[in-house]
């Protein structure tokens, strides 16, 4: 089972690097609507409406810089691709990889992703607060190789609905 998780993590990290090359670069400040490719944010950003994701094999939103915040403003981020399989395991809601001093600030809902609701990989000083992560196939939020992070006042419900035997859950 650990092997499965390790493979999954390796795959995620590789995906993140690939997305730095392939993903759309935007100076996002306001986010809403439907996304079919990964949205990488480089500045403080906020949701101004519900977000629907149809990003196959990659995260919906990812952080591309340190020292920035993503405010959810009470809106939801929902994956439209249904099902939990090993093929959906990299379809995270929000990925935070290799950055520091970033925040995901709720209230807001991250739901129904084929991977993790929020994935924090090799990052430091990441704050996640007042976020609800629900009905994601793997964990609501996962922290791998990260340090000095604060996960406060969040709600994690009904996650790990199809983690393919990997140890997953709320956090």
């Amino acid at each position, binding site marked *: 089972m650990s092997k499965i*998780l390790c493979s999954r993590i390796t795959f995620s990290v590789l995906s993140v690097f690939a997305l730095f090359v392939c993903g759309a670069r935007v100076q996002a400040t306001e986010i809403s609507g439907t996304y079919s490719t990964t949205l990488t944010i480089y500045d403080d950003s906020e949701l101004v409406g519900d977000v629907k994701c149809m990003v196959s094999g990659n995260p919906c939103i990812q952080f591309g810089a340190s020292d920035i915040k993503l405010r959810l403003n009470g809106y939801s981020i929902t994956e439209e691709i249904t099902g939990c399989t090993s093929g959906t395991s990299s379809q995270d809601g929000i990925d935070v990889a290799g950055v520091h001093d970033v925040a995901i600030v709720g209230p807001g809902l991250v739901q129904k992703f084929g991977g993790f609701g929020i994935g924090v990989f090799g990052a430091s000083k990441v704050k996640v607060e007042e976020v609800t992560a629900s009905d994601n196939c793997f964990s609501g939020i996962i922290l791998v190789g990260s340090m000095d992070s604060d996960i406060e006042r969040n709600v*994690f419900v009904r996650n790990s609905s*199809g983690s393919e*035997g990997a140890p*997953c*859950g*709320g*956090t």
Partner: protein
Amino acid sequence: MNVYSGNGALPSTFSSGATSNNFGVGLVGTSKDNLIEKNKIGGNLNGVLIMGSTQGGNIIRRNIIAGNPPVQVSNAFGASVGADIRDLSTPGANTFEDNQCLTYMGSVEPAPCPRISKPDNDEDRQREIAAFGRNRLAFPQARLINAVFHPSGRPLSKAAGSEQSSQTSDSNSVTVIGKVVDAACFMLHASAATAASHKDCGAACLARGAPLAIATDDGVLYFPADGNQRLKSLLNARVRASGTFVEKHDPMELKMPVGDKNQMVVRVEGGYKQITIETLTRIPAEKR
């Protein structure tokens, strides 16, 4: 505080009697030095799961961890399917403190669960009680609070500091109309003591033996000679009491609990009135 509910699912290959590895909060891989504090974790396959690969130094404290896994899951797959805390780490590597939990799977001795903390031992609750006392009494934090009260209502015929002690100066028939109050609180903050919002607070003090008195409209307190017995059912009610009163000149100490461990003492100097109640009636609200 985070809330973790209903996380985890069993794969189709799961066999009855096996153990699941899904969780509300999981420490997996080489996790170390994490603090898991003040979370509510229920209805997950495992509440807190600590894998054997963790490097220790994790502290799990003051969480409420119960109902993991849901009873229907236990019924269907056996009690071993999960627990409130499932700990696969080396005993002593991680710390469990003051969690409220029921089931534990692991090798720590004594097991951290079942444990239902006593409210009196709960630090937060003690802080709340202390804060309640401070706010209510507008007194600084103290283990023992002393206050000296000199009656400011009708002046007594005998001066404070008189050489007389425990002497009855005179005895008179009297009819007193006023409100039944928590006497110590009334002396410190009359308007707060007579407010409707003080009712529950006064009742709590009464239950712990705080003295009651009848406070007249001009602020004079009449202490019943027979203690709280006749007044206790009339706290905050307006009453008419008839009987005889005497003026006592010896100092009196009124003790009032502040939280479970602290006590406030109000010392009444300069005398006070004591009434031996013969008739006592509640004045209905509409006649006030």
